[in-house]
């Protein structure tokens, strides 16, 4: 009898070890095999809308991770015909949304919509100020010993940029 119990216990242990290794090595693979199907669904950032809801601009956000927190309705399933509007993305110039039109399960149009703040005005505040014109003939100062950094256009060629830019960044002072 004791031998029989020991045999059953060892079989049980063996079986659980087998199950464990299955979960460890194969379960993950199964989930990645599923994911290609999920690709045909519309991701979290888009939700199907009939009408664009009025949105209020919450001001400047420069951090890209903010876009994640604003995802709302998840749409699961194959592409269905209709217009999908993305969540509101706050940029330095105001809030915008991506709008995707799907027809015959295919994306037929991608447009962007500018969202406006509660007062109906775009977030960016433009004033009638213009850039100060400077003519190159005014050039007077050359390399100053007081300068720490130099602002200039990034030049075209890779190797040239590297050597010139590091020279500019390090040679000063």
């Amino acid at each position, binding site marked *: 009898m004791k031998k029989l119990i020991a045999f059953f216990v060892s079989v049980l242990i063996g079986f659980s070890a087998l199950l464990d290794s299955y979960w460890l090595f194969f379960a993950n693979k199964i989930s990645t095999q599923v994911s290609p199907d999920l690709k045909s669904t519309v991701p979290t950032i888009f939700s199907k809308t009939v009408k664009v809801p009025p949105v209020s601009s919450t001001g400047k956000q420069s951090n890209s991770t903010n876009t994640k927190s604003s995802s709302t309705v998840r749409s699961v399933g194959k592409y269905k015909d209709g217009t*999908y509007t993305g969540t509101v993305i706050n940029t330095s110039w105001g809030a915008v949304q*991506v709008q995707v039109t799907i027809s015959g399960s295919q994306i037929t149009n991608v447009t962007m919509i500018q969202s406006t703040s509660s007062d109906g005005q775009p977030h960016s505040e433009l004033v009638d100020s213009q850039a100060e014109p400077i003519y190159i003939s005014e050039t007077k100062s050359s390399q100053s010993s007081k300068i720490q950094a130099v*602002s200039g256009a990034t030049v075209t060629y890779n190797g040239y940029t590297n050597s010139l830019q590091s020279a500019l960044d390090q040679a000063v002072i």
Partner: protein
Amino acid sequence: MNIIQKNLTKHTMYTLVHKTMGTVFTTQIIANERLSQCEEKKVIKHQRLLENYLEQVDARFSTYLNDSEVSLFNRGEIKITEVSDVFIFVFSSCFAAKLATNEAFDANYNDKFDPSGFVKGWSIETGLNNFLKPLFKIEHIQAINLIGGGDMQFETRNGSNWVFDIGIVNPYSKKEIIKTLALTTGAIATSGISERGEHIYRRNKSVLQATVVGTSLQETDVWATALMVNPKASLPKNITGFVFYALEGDENVKNS
């Protein structure tokens, strides 16, 4: 990793250099006393995090890399509904910038999405904010500047007497400075006719270079590009622009 140390009148400047996005990124740290070895190690740790971030941005948004998200998107291999959230943020920002600049800034080039005119400035700004600004915990550090290909975002500790003297390069002679600005905290961007990866169609051919000063590099970088295209563009509040025109009689000048 190399830290270059330079003694200024009353401060010490530490410089770290990293090459990515086809250009050079330079971190400048201004301290009022020499940093200890332990503090230098902290600086290197944060610089590594910054470099890792910039490499990730390049891998995702480079138009020169075949497997970047931008390249996949432009070849139609991924759809707008399949792109990452950060891609949507950049896509949206480029669109909003186009509207704000009256289409002088446009990330669409030959029907392809090319966000390079936005991505560099944005990654410098977020890179400084997320990875370098924590170094202000070291009390000797008075100011930090992150420069990428001639554009920079910088911050000076509150109450510090440090001032950055930033020169604007002469578009004719890259070894000459045509103007010097004294700034503590903010961003400065310069666009020129030799800009890499930015396809600028100048309406006024006498414009050689545009420099824009503001608080956020993602904005100033876009406005610098916009001023190259339209030097008469209206700028938002708290943004200052300098447009450099060619000499009269310059053979490159074509009157529009």
